[in-house]
């Protein structure tokens, strides 16, 4: 145990650098996936055949490709087409795109759960599609969407570790580097696991809070 504390004091500062990148990747890809997911979802419920078909196709393609392959593609293949990204940019873009499919399906479910009478009431006072979405449907859908959204946040935090495969020195990669140079596998990976857990706990509590709020009407 004493050895563990010693290792902790020694490795924590290096691992904290990884934590910073983990947080940047998570927040960046969370924002991107939310934006893209909302666009796909609105296309899907637009009632315009071309848009909704395009969005359904896109979602299926994205869902069918493993995150790690998407990351490789962005980081190693795109330069051949003239688009060179830094590892961090590729990680945020790749995770953001990958998760946009799940976000879109979640948002769509939330939007479709709103009573049709709400949309009719909005139309009856002269609102168009956009205004109906912005003023009536989305504010109500948010309540339904938030608990699963919180779960996506937790999954993204953990999946940000996949960025290590394209050399982003986030928490998992920092851990691996320290472990392979010191052979202190037990200390290092226990520490890494605890640090992920520590970051997840506030999110888990947030999900519980969302669920409670969604429960009360």
């Amino acid at each position, binding site marked *: 145990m004493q050895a563990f504390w010693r290792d902790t004091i020694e490795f924590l500062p290096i691992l904290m650098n990884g934590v910073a990148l983990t947080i940047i990747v998570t927040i960046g890809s969370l924002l991107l996936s939310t934006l893209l997911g909302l666009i796909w979802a609105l296309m899907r419920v637009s009632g315009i055949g071309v848009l909704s078909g395009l969005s359904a196709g896109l979602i299926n393609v994205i869902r069918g490709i493993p995150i790690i392959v998407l990351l490789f593609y962005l980081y190693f293949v795109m330069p051949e087409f003239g688009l060179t990204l830094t590892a961090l940019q590729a990680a945020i873009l790749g995770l953001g795109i990958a998760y946009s499919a799940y976000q879109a399906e979640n948002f769509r479910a939330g939007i479709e759960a709103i*009573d049709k*009478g709400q949309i*009719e*009431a909005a*139309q009856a*006072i*002269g*609102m168009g599609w956009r205004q109906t979405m912005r*003023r009536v449907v989305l*504010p109500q859908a948010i309540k339904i969407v938030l608990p699963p959204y919180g779960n996506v946040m937790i999954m993204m935090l953990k999946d940000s570790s996949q960025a290590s495969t394209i050399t982003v020195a986030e928490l998992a990669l920092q851990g691996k580097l320290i472990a392979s140079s010191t052979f202190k596998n037990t200390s290092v990976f226990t520490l890494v696991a605890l640090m992920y857990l520590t970051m997840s706990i506030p999110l888990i509590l947030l999900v519980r809070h969302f669920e409670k709020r969604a429960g009360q009407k």
Partner: protein
Amino acid sequence: MIELTNVHKSFGKVEVLKGITASVEKGEVVCIIGPSGSGKSTILRCINGLESYDSGDISVEGARVDRNAPSIVSIRTQVSMVFQRFNLFPHRTALENVIEGPVYVKKEPRAAALERGRALLAQVGLAEKAEVHPPQLSGGQQQRVAIARALAMQPKAILFDEPTSALDPELVGDVLSVMRKLADDGMTMVVVTHEMGFARDVADRVLFIDGGVIVEQGPAKSVLNQPQHARTQDFLRRVLHPL
């Protein structure tokens, strides 16, 4: 003011309106009665473009109703709708529900809309409920807020789609008395209803609809008291003497 000429409408293979021709004059109260599934609500929904119609013509103050044309917005601001299940926005207070259309559709100044909104809530007897959210209101109160929301658009006519059918019996009276006051003030109203007492006392005219056609129409008292058509007689007997 509202003109329907030979309106046909099908849902899939089922033809629900089979050539409806009717008109509503300014200041008139017209009640539409008839059995469930006869197409009563569909008529209202076609008038403000919530449904499309297949053929025929509907116009409001001379403007043709086409739910896909930009002109539908102006028609909807002139002809308000009150729904059976109220359809208030649950995430907004009663007052916010009332000013939603004036502020965000008609772009009225917020202060003026708030002032009129409060006056309208007072008019329907709910001045003290302005800041309450709809789920905390009874069905009758919600429907009265919905009527205030319809009035806030300063419409030329209001369409009521079975406004009391989802209410507990003891709450029906409050809503009907608000509607009666509106009629007395000269509001043009088209009311789909099963409240025969209301139709008899308040309506100028009654249309009896069955199977997608107008079977009988005329002054309220004559249609309800001396129906000419056998189907009207049968329907009224069932409604007024269910046992």
